[in-house]
């Protein structure tokens, strides 16, 4: 089963995403900010991370940066930004940090889920090919 980590400080938003993912049959981990998210990633090694950017303690881009620099073993882990920051500069910054996708709020669940499914297929293929466990 695919494990997805949802990092989001807005409780209501987080709940909606979690519902959607769980309904799609995924195992969902939750974190309220970047710091918690980073801890969860290191401990539970999720397959996919969906993260907000603007969060207290540690924002999403910092979390990804931290991961890329200090934990290269996670550099292949798909990372999706899901943020209310819709400006172009921020999108460039987020993708430049190594994100797989940069999606903006309000959330289009069809797009989000298509992205997730695409990633799931890729991951399963790699596992089937014996590239990953």
């Amino acid at each position, binding site marked *: 089963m695919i494990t997805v980590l949802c990092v989001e400080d*807005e409780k209501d*938003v987080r709940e909606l995403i979690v519902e959607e993912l769980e309904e799609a049959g995924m195992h969902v981990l939750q974190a309220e900010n*970047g710091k918690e998210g980073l801890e969860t990633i290191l401990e539970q090694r999720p397959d996919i991370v969906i993260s907000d950017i*603007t969060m207290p303690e540690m*924002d999403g881009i910092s979390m990804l940066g931290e991961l890329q620099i200090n934990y290269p073993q996670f550099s292949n882990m798909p990372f999706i930004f899901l943020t*209310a*920051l819709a400006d172009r500069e921020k999108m460039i910054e987020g993708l430049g940090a190594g994100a797989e996708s940069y999606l903006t709020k309000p959330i289009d669940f069809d797009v989000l889920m298509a992205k997730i499914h695409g990633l799931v297929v890729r991951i399963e293929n790699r596992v089937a090919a014996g590239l990953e466990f």
Partner: protein
Amino acid sequence: MPNKTWINLPPWALLASRDILRAATANRRLGDILSEITDVITGIADLDLASQAALYLGECGQEGHRLIYHRQSEDFSFPLVIDPENISDSFPQGWGRMSFYPVPLAAEQDGRIIGSALFFGRTAKRMSAQKQSILQLLGQEIARIIINRGGPSGNLIDLVELSTDEIYIFDPLSLSIIRANQTASIRTGHSIEALTRLTPAQLKVDMGEETYRRHLAPLLTGNCNSVCFDARHRRRNGTVYPVKVQVWRIRGGEDGDFYAELAITTADQRKAFGLLEQVFDAIPGGIGVFDKRSRLLMANRRLYDLMNIPPEQFPPGSRFEDILRYNATRGEYGDGNVEAMVRERVEQAELGLPYSFERERASGKVLAVRSEPLSGGGYVLSYTDITLRKRAEKELIRNRDELEATVRQRTAEIAAQAAALEEALKQEKTINAMQRQFVAMTSHEFRTPLAIIDGAAQRLMRKKGGIEADFLVDKTHQIRAAVMRMVDLMESILSAGRIDTGRMELTLVDCSLKKLIEQAIHRQRMFSQNHRFQGFLEDLPDVIRCDALAISQVVTNLLGNAVKYAPRAPDVTIRGWREGDFAMISVQDQGVGIDADDIPKLFQPYFRARTSTGIAGTGIGLSLVKQVVTLHGGDIALESRRGHGSTFTIRLPIAGPVMPSIEPQLEETAF
């Protein structure tokens, strides 16, 4: 006529001829004589003397021809002294580019020579015999004119009386004056009678009897008939003038010899001295000439004025130190030992070095004093009144200082303006940056509740299996909360806009602050279920006059902040109490806190504290709170430290703002 004859004439004869002319002057006849002579000369056209010549009437003595009268010639500077040795028999004799022609003035009747005339002119080197004879005739003619006009008697006493030089006849043993002439009286200022009580030595400055006798010594031996020396005579009024002294030994027969002193103030000397006196008096400053022994030789009137010393007390011959002592005693030189001050000044004057200084007199007059040494010893002191100049200088300095001060002030003003402009520009840039950030944040702030609403709606549509009642309630709840959030957000942005443009008006009503706060807490609890709100509101006044909606917004904002900036510290304490005429409300959290240097800027629109990094917000909430509270005539205080939470305290006048922006409304809004 042999020329030598007149050259070797006894000096008395020459004197006589000269004195005749002088006497004529006194009788105002010289002008007549001279104009006649001039007529004669100009009548002899071929002598070529008319335009260029100078007529030089004079005596020939030991010291050469002395000028008595001359017609002005552009080619000469008179007076000239001509060495008698150089006068030969031959005509003409060279004198620079000029020639002169000595002509004896011989009386027609007896051939007696009464004087001589020298004709100067730019004539041929050699004069024709004819011209020479004409000149001889001219000499006779001049003699005739002179004799006809007043004629010399040849009598010694007459000569003495007529002389325009001072003549003193005195006893060689006692030196007492037997007789003095009118000129002596006029020049010295003593009466003739008074002069007979004096000796020639007493008339002289710095010359004692002994010295005088030493000068006369050669006469006593009988080896010579006359002696000459220079001296200075002092007038009765104290002024001094130089004289050339000739003393003659006159054989007096039975009465024994007596001496005659001829004190000559030569025409040029006299003229120069007179001129000097005039010049001295014309000088605006005070001038005093002192000899090497610091005795006053000569001074002008102004010197006495400026030094403020009485002229009669300090005539020429006075000692400089006496003048100084007089002044020192009066306190002109300040306090101190009088003798020491006098000595110091005399010593400096006698050093023989030029010096100058400025001195302010007790009267306030400022004097510039200057001393210039004289080549033969002695010195000239000059006093200049520079009071006005000093005053002008002070004025000038004052003006300059004022100008400098003005320039400094203007420069400072310009610098201040520049700084203000720079500050304004900086502020403008900051505001721009804050506004850009605000737009980005606003967009973010709207998108978040929108995401909830849209997300909840999508979830309702996408829910697999049937929608249960709980799920529906849950989603509806989320949607409503998000909508509420958006409304609040919109309200605060609109309020901020209204306040910014000065259009915000308070709608004042009497309301219960306690109820208003409780409702705000209640609303906040709905959104912030992780936080605990504790209210202590019992001490609040029952009713206060305020814009209930605006104050409600204020409290909501503070509560919202207490939650937002304290994600990990759930305790929020709200207190309310009364202080005099004011209602006090404080909201305390245990959150991130605020850096001390961020606190002053915290209420500026769009400003966000550094500790807010990563926490969404527009930066307008607190500025709005501040404006609303200020409009109510209250204020807001903040106590905070990074990492130690914040306490915001609001003070509102219970009676409402002093100048309500609109008429109070009658109805009471219930809370």
